[in-house]
C-alpha cells in the first residue's frame, strides 16, 4: 500500500530527478559557451609568446596569439578556466545524482 509519506517521498525524488536532468542540460550549455582551450605563455629564447592550447581529434594544438595579448584576454581565459572546473564538477555531481535518483525511484515500481 502506498502511504501519504511514501507518495510525498516519491514526489520529492521525481521532482529532484527532473531538476537534476534539467540542470545537467543547462550546465552543458554553459560549458559549451566558454572559450575552448587555455591561454599559455611560452618563453622561447628569452621572449614571451602566447598560445591557446586546444585538444582537437586527440591531438594537442597550439594556436599562436602573439608576443603580447590584452589583459582582457588573459582575464577571460582565467575566468573560463575557473568556470570550466566548476561546471565540470557540477556535471559530475549531477550525473551521480541522476544515477542515484533513477535507482531509488526504480525500486520495485516503474518510474
Amino acid at each position, binding site marked *: 500500500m502506498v502511504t*501519504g509519506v511514501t*507518495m510525498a517521498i516519491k514526489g520529492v525524488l521525481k521532482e529532484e530527478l527532473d531538476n537534476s536532468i534539467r540542470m545537467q542540460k*543547462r550546465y552543458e550549455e554553459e560549458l559549451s559557451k566558454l572559450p575552448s582551450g587555455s591561454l599559455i605563455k611560452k618563453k622561447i629564447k628569452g621572449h614571451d609568446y602566447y598560445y591557446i592550447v586546444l585538444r582537437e581529434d586527440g591531438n594537442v594544438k597550439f594556436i599562436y596569439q602573439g608576443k603580447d595579448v590584452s589583459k582582457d584576454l588573459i582575464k577571460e581565459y582565467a575566468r573560463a578556466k575557473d568556470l570550466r572546473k566548476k*561546471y565540470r564538477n557540477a556535471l559530475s555531481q549531477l550525473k551521480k545524482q541522476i544515477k542515484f535518483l533513477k535507482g531509488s525511484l526504480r525500486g520495485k515500481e516503474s518510474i
Partner: protein
Amino acid sequence: MNDAGVLSKVILIGSWCLPLYKEYYSGENAMSALRTRDIDFLVSQKTKFEEKVNLPKMLEDMGFIEEYKYPEGLVKLIHPELIMEFLVHKKGRGSSKPFPLPFLSMNAQRLRFLDLLEENTIEVIFNGIKIIVPHPVNFGLHKLIISNRRKNEEKSIKDLQAGLSVLNLCVENKEEEKIQEVFKHILQKQQKGIIELLAHEKAYKILDVINR
C-alpha cells in the same frame, strides 16, 4: 548573501523553513525535513534595497548559473545543491508576468496567498546568520491552504504534511492564541477548507484550538 545585505531584506519560505522552526523551538520536536533543493525567498513589493547587488554574478563564483524560463522570463539561480528563486505576492487577479527586482538583477515570480507569509515574520539565528522566516503559525496555515489547491497529488500531500507538522509543533509550544488570531484573519472560504482538511486528517489537536 548575508554579507551583501540581501538576507535581511528577504523572507525565506518553503520547506527550508522546517529545520529553522525546529531550531526556533529549541529542538523540542523531531520534525520531518523532507524537502527539495528549491530555496525560495519572498520579497515584499515594498522592500527597498540600499545597494544594488548583482546576485547572479555574486553566486557565479560558487558555480551557480542562471536558468531562464521562457516565455515568462523568470530567472532561477541553479547549482547541483540548490535552486534559488524569488517570489512576490500576487495581488487579486494580478499580472502573471515576472516582477522585476533590479536591485538583485533578478526577476521574481508572482504567486497568490504569499501575503499570509509576509505579514507576520520572525527572526531565527541559524549557524550564526540571522534569517527571516514566516511565523510558524502563518507558515503552517499557508501550507494547508495551498495543499487544498494543488492539482499535483504528491505536492499536495507534501504541503499537507509540512503544514500539519508545523502546526502540531505550534500547539505543543503554546501558540494556541496565535493560531486563533491568524486563522480569524484568513478568508472564510479558506477557513472552511482548512477545517475540512484537518477533520479529514483527524488532526484533532489543531482543530480543537481553531474551534475553541
